[in-house]
């Protein structure tokens, strides 16, 4: 009995926090999403109006499309890049520790500073990329200032920061039994075949994990998009749209409805990806 209550006391602060900062706000969010609240003044109950407006709003579909398109391209790119880097870094030649830090560093320095650096790198006139292209007599695009080049700009940043998951891949690579490779070699498999038929299948659980994390991350992308924006609203990711609605226009009811829709999208995608698990994830 004593042992029971003691354990409960240890988790009590977390439990209080759960009620105060998660459960209560979630219940409140259901109600707020059904009102026309703008912080000042009364909140009038308006039923599902916010949701109907949302699904008729072109801006919503635009930001959803920006986000989905980014997710579809960035996630596979990030997974492929970080997997390739990890396979390289798994070899224990001298100096591998330094390489590991170098590839991991872009993932750890996130935030506004990095976004600003990329804004400068992608500057159409004097930025790093276009200066290099000029050197080869190529006229570079206007990147963030050209609606067609906003997405590639974000993809460049995404690939650069892809190292975030290499530590998880490296840990998983260590767990692959080495005799599998030995057996493959006796059967005459080349390096690429070994990667294709042993490494990748054995890594599918961790790829699956990073896929889920990647989906959540894409739908919650905020900092870069807030700082960089992009011509033609092509950088208006869904979280930026939500932030603007809530804290620039004070459409609290509408923004909360949007938050629920966003949550439903993330949840649905997670469930769908989870359902495909049995077809491709090695157990």
């Amino acid at each position, binding site marked *: 009995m004593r042992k029971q209550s003691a354990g409960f006391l240890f988790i009590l602060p977390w439990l209080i926090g759960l009620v105060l900062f998660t459960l209560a706000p979630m219940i409140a969010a259901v109600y707020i999403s059904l009102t026309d609240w703008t912080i000042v003044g009364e909140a009038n109950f308006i039923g599902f109006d916010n949701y109907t407006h949302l699904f008729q709003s072109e801006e919503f579909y635009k930001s959803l499309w920006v986000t989905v398109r980014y997710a579809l391209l960035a996630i596979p790119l990030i997974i492929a890049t970080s997997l390739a880097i990890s396979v390289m870094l798994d070899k224990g030649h001298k100096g591998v520790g330094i390489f590991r*830090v170098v590839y991991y560093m872009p993932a750890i320095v996130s935030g506004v500073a990095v976004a600003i650096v990329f804004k400068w790198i992608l500057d159409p006139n004097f930025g790093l990329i276009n200066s290099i292209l000029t050197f080869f007599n190529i006229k570079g695009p206007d990147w963030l200032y050209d609606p067609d080049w906003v997405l590639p700009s974000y993809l460049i940043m995404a690939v650069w920061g892809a190292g975030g998951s290499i530590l998880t891949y490296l840990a998983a690579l260590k767990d692959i039994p080495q005799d599998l490779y030995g057996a493959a070699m006796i059967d005459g498999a080349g390096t690429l075949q070994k990667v294709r038929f042993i490494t990748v299948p054995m890594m599918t659980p961790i790829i699956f994990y990073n896929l889920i994390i990647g989906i959540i991350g894409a739908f919650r992308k905020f900092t870069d998009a807030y700082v960089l924006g992009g011509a033609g609203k092509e950088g208006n990711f869904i979280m930026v749209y939500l932030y603007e609605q809530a804290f620039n226009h004070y459409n609290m009811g509408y923004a909360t409805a949007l938050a*629920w829709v966003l949550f439903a999208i993330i949840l649905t995608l997670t469930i769908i990806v989870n359902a495909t698990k049995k077809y491709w994830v090695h157990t």
Partner: protein
Amino acid sequence: MSFVKSQKPNSLYISNEKIRFRKIAWYVSLIIGSFIMLLPFLWMISTSFKLEDDIFSIPIKWFPDKITLDNFKRAFEVVPILKYMSNTLFIAVGKIFGEVFISAMAAYGFSRFKFRGRNFLFMVLLATMMLPYEVTMIPTFIVWSNLGLTDNYTPLILPAYFGAASFIFFLRMYFETFPASYEEAAIIDGANYLQIFRKIFLPLSKPALITIALWAFMGTWNDLLGQLIYINSTEKLTIQLGLASFSSMTGEVFWGPLMAASLLALLPIIALLLYAQKYFVEGVKMTGVKG
């Protein structure tokens, strides 16, 4: 006659030359990759020490004729960078103790005790790790704003004192590796559970605690959205907010000072990574992500 020639090369045998070639290829490709990874940093550093004419020169002058500290001086004139950094530091330090200590307490409760509803509550905890932050963000903001506590660090710090789900999850796994004999011996010596927690569990899990303290620090240092919602006054801005407003108010021409400020904002994080590398690596290994 041609016996030796016709012998098929044994696929198990790799010649020394081939090994050496592969090793060189390994180094070359990783070095090229590293260069690409480091290029944005080099570009930032190079810009922040250049005179304006050199910043806007084509072709790029990686090593300018004259190195200048002007950009740093001008950055400091426009934004009080050190003040903003210390504001962030204040929030981070304020949070870390709560996030680490309270999370460790809850992890201890979940891992070493059997009480009613424990498994259910742990499932709830896992569910909150996928928590819809965007859903709770607005109601939480409204409550703080009704309490008159916006433009204040309280909404950023106080929630940390109720623990963080991911840290609890991480530490619980760590605590479960400790053998039961540790506590049994202490109980025979007359220690109570709080003493066991403080004198045995906390000291033994120092590496794990340092790891989550690092994560908590990085999370605060790099957070923009949370701080953007709550902080407005110029003198209360954090380093992220300060940089964001610096960037939006100066537009395109101020690249030198902007890069200088960015460099200063990134230095603490890079220093931390280099200094505490093993804790980052250990942390990921610990969470282990067993497939």
